[in-house]
């Protein structure tokens, strides 16, 4: 009888261990630092607490939290923010399973992308009610104050909705008014106070860029598109056109004699 109980005990312990490891494998990230009222699934969180896909994290007034994702990405949540980890899958050895779908329902955040952002760009999406942010090796901030505002610290982000994709480079600020109108570049001084103060606070947070941080301008590679399977020819085609267009645009930006404005 004792032997049977011992076996049962070992079985239960093994099962528990398996469950713990399974939980770890499914986890998306860990709460790195926090202050104030920060909750996951409506329960107060603690430092080093692991967060699972499907978890909604909220911050109260004056609160802030930093989440370190398993791929090295870091997210700083501003006060009064609601952030949802919709889907997150990361296996260091297998890029084909990469997936990072995040929702910023309200509030503001700053994000430094990780390995998924570098090696599986189409697998990443940060969604707001107005746009989906795609990353290209980036440190950026987003504030949902209706409209959505984005500001890029390093690298570049693509803000996509049904109207198109606008790529913002380092130092650029953009606004997306609705999900059906193209995001537009704006001057930082045009940010509303709520977004401006959020960006000031988030921008001041010291983040250690992980080894996986893809640096500025890690833009598209010309790799096959996951959705369509289309390989955009030789990179020289679009790269050549981009170079020519950039040369033309640079002159326009520098006020080199062209007339008219083609702001988008």
């Amino acid at each position, binding site marked *: 009888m004792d032997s049977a109980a011992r076996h049962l005990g070992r079985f239960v312990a093994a099962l528990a261990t398996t469950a713990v490891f399974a939980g770890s494998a499914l986890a998306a990230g860990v709460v790195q630092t926090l202050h104030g009222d920060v909750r996951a699934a409506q329960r107060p969180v603690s430092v080093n607490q692991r967060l699972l896909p499907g978890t909604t994290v909220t911050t109260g007034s004056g609160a802030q939290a930093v989440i370190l994702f398993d791929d090295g990405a870091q997210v700083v949540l501003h006060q009064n923010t609601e952030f949802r980890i919709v889907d997150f899958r990361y296996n260091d050895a297998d890029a084909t399973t990469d997936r990072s779908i995040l929702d910023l329902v309200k509030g503001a955040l700053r994000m430094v992308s990780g390995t998924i952002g570098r090696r599986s760009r189409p697998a990443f999406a940060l969604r707001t009610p107005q746009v989906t942010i795609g990353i290209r090796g980036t440190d950026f901030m987003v504030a949902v104050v209706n409209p959505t505002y984005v500001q890029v610290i390093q690298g570049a982000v693509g803000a996509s909705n049904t*109207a198109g994709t606008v*790529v913002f480079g380092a130092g650029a600020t953009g606004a997306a008014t609705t999900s059906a109108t193209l995001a537009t570049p704006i001057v930082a001084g045009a940010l509303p106070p709520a977004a401006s103060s959020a960006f000031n606070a988030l921008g001041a947070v010291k983040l250690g860029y992980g080894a996986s941080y893809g640096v500025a301008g890690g*833009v598209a590679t010309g790799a096959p598109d996951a959705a369509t399977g289309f390989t955009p020819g030789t990179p020289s085609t679009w790269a050549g056109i981009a170079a020519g267009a950039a040369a*033309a645009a640079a002159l326009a930006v520098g006020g080199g004699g062209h007339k008219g404005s083609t702001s*988008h």
Partner: protein
Amino acid sequence: MKQAAVALVLLAIASWLAHTHVAGLIYYPVVQLRSPEGLTYTAVQDSTNDRQGCGAANDRFLRPLKEQCKQCKVVFARCARTLEGLEAELQDGVPLPYHRVFAPGIRLAIVGSAAPAKITCELIAGGMVQRGLSSAACVYPATPRPLRAALES
């Protein structure tokens, strides 16, 4: 003597009018390309009142392209006094059934299969930002109006 003076004045007036006319002209740098993937690109840059400046603008656009895309075929590069058709619509920013790249000073339409055009459009916008532009847009084709709405209007 008097006739010579009148002729001189008339000549001066004619010269001034001719100068004013030429100075009032504007030129749009327009380039059309075809890529090996079967996409056709039409680029319209901001207008200039300098004919030589227009040619230089086209050169500026084509130089890196020729260096980096040997397979791309330049269909034409010209300085248009007026824009018509796709070029005018592109410049005016009206909704079009094509993917377009918008950036300060230049607008580019990509005509061809939708999937390659979309990817290339986003790559070009991203590539422009990679080359130092603060932002560039890839605008998706305008959604065709539903048949009922089209009939009712």
